[in-house]
Each structure stands twice: as C-alpha cells, then as structure tokens.
C-alpha cells in the first residue's frame, strides 16, 4: 500500500531541519523535525511502509524493527490528523 500526503489545503515550508506545515482545512499548524522530515518528503511523492522504513535505515543506520516502529508512529499521527490521502 502506498501512503501519500493529502494533495489539497496543506501547505508547508522547510526551514533548516524543520518542516512547518499548515493544514488549512483544520486551521492547524504542525512542526516536523528529525527523521519526520525525510519521511515527509518521501510521503510527498508517495511511498510504501517498507520504502519509508528503508529510507530511515539508510539515513540513520537503525535496525529494521525500530525503523518500522518509527514509521508506524509517524503514519498513525498523520492519519489521525487527516493528512494522508484517502
């Protein structure tokens, strides 16, 4: 399954190592830092869970279990905020 960020009413800007985003539908701001920044970029294009985990492993040298758990937490958070495409 490919996950992708919602394509409308979501604006963002990267400032150094932080992404500042505005969900204009809910009028909510988000700040994303750390590994979330690379996941955010990957989700912009669309990526599977395993591709996202692989990107974390390649970037941070963490093991597969931890990478998968981090991806799950991040995807859950985005899903709860309604930021993933249906």
């Amino acid at each position: 399954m490919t996950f992708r960020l919602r394509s409308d009413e979501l604006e963002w800007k990267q400032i150094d190592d932080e992404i500042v985003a505005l969900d204009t539908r809910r009028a909510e701001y988000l700040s994303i830092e750390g590994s979330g920044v690379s996941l955010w970029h990957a989700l912009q294009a669309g990526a599977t869970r395993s591709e996202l985990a692989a990107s974390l492993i390649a970037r941070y040298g963490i093991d597969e279990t931890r990478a998968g758990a981090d991806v799950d937490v991040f995807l859950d958070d985005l899903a709860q905020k309604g930021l993933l495409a249906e």
Partner: protein
Amino acid sequence: MESVDADVSTVRGVAAAGFWDEVNALVDRATSLDALRAHRLQLLAASLWRSTGRPVPIELRDDERRGAMLAMAAPGLLRRARAACDGRLMLMKGPEVACRYPDPAARYFGDLDLLSDDPRATQRALVAAGFVELESPEDWVGKHHLPPLAWPGIPLAIEVHRGPKLPGWLAAPTTEELMALAVPSATGIDGLLAPAPAAHALMLAAHGWAHRPLGRLGDLIDVAAMLTEDERAPAAELAHRWGWSRMWTTTLKSADALLRHGRATLPLRTWGRYLNQVRDLSVIEFHVIQIAGPLFAASLRELPGALGGVVAQTASPWPGETWGAKLTRSRKAVVHAFSDQADHDRQVGHNPWRR
C-alpha cells in the same frame, strides 16, 4: 499540496539588475538583530545568510518560522475572503509586495490589507462566512480600516480598509480611482486585484511616511522593488496628480541613494543617517523624524497642519493611556534619549501609533 514558494506568480526580480545585491549589502551592514528588525530586514538576513552558508541565529529562525506560518496562511485566507464577498477586492502591501522579492518568504507581513468599494458590506460578508471581528467596531470608527478579522485558529488578521493608510497631511485618492488603476493580484488568486505597480509604489511610500517617516529600509526596499524603469514615469505622473510629488521625490531619491548608488540626499546626510548605517533609531531620532519628515515631504500648503498633527500626537497620551502614565513615559524618553528605540520600547511598551 504545494510548498509556499510555488504559490506566487512570475513577477519576481522585476527590479533593476543588481538591486538585490545592494539590498544584501545593506543587510550585511546591520549593526544588530534589533537593527534588522527595526528596518524589517530580519527575514532577508536569514534568507541571505542561509543561501551563503552562514549560520542563522536561533532568534532569526524563530522570526522565519513565524513569517512562514503567516505566509502559508495568506493564500487560503485570501481565497476564503474572495469567495465570501461580491464586488471588487484589492490586496495592498503584504503578500502582494512579497511577490516582488526573490524569495517571497523573506518579506514579512503581519496582516492582510484589503480594499473594497463597500467596506462595510465586505466586512459583513466576511463575518457571515465565518471570520470573527477581533475588536469592537466602536473602537474603529473613523479609522482607515474596520475592526481586524480573523479565521479561527489562524493568527493572521484581515483588515478591510476604507482607504489606504496615509500621513494626515496627504490627500487620499478615492477608492474609485484606485480601483480604476487595479491589476490582477500577483498572488494569482482568481478575482483578487492589486494596485497597479506605480500606484502601489506610491501607496507603500505614503504608508511608510504615516508610520515612521523615512524610518525603515524595508519600506524603501518595498517601494523600489515595486518599480521597474518603465514604471517610474507613471509613478511620478500619478504623484503629481494626487499632490504627492514632494513626498514621492524625497522617498525615491532616498531609495535611489541607498539602493542604486544615487547621490546622498539631505535627509540621508543629516537626520536619516541611521538608514545608511543600518542601525536602529535612537529615541531622540525617532522624535526628530516625526518633525523632519513633514518638512521634507509635505507641500508648503500641507506643512502647518502636518507639524500641528505631529505636536498634538507627541503631546497626547496613547489611546487608553492616562496622563500620569504619559508623563512617566515622557520622562523615560528624556532619560533614554540616546538609547536605541527598541531598548526604550522594551521598557515602556509598544506605541500603538508606531507599527
């Protein structure tokens, strides 16, 4: 979804070649972070320093974050406002000017200024659409705009104007005349208008004189960024028609001196040296420019009224301030006469007349 940078049109970089290099040179001359903020150059500084690999201080990153949050909110709010009301709607300053910057995120704005043919009807339509008035209408009777409006959760206000903000000594063009000069907004939002560049440059200049006469480099950069070579003659003609020639000439010569290697003007060599030195004004300089400004920008006919207005404003308490508090503040101003205005403001509070 799109990053904010993609949400502007293609008018960037219309200023003369080398113009932004001169702006960057001024930014690099700033004496302090307070000076950058006083001249509204802080986001330009952050953008410049990041692009050249220099470290960006944490305070500037905070400013950038706030600027980015507001800039991201602007297109959505403007679309909502446009959809909520009928008739012509004109965006002034703020994001419209930002479109002329090489990096629009480097031009800070704190609100959205809209002009319409019927401001009260526009205000009512926006409230009906879900915008909330932040202050009581009674507090804004006779002011140049109606009470600021906010969309719940978004910290960027919309101000529906009765007319552009001008020094009291300048005659205002009618809304009808401004609308007749309107062009599609550079933000690309369907149905949203903006003043024609020459008219916009004049309005930006006048706005600067209303708040801090020749007091901010950011104001002069805005004016110059709005003008191509081809727009200089129409701007001069319009200034003449509106009776703004003296204000316009003083503004443009000062901008040219600072940003186009023009000849230093008398204000820049005397009471406006803080501009070339890119430093914050001292308290006494702030008071001097209030008087010197009209002397260099008002016509002879306007001058007595202009100076009278300055004296009345300086001698009066701020809105809601008691006379006792006013006298205490005046004593502190004397004590702090040669301190930076930002330091003085931190001690006595913000002057609501000076945004």
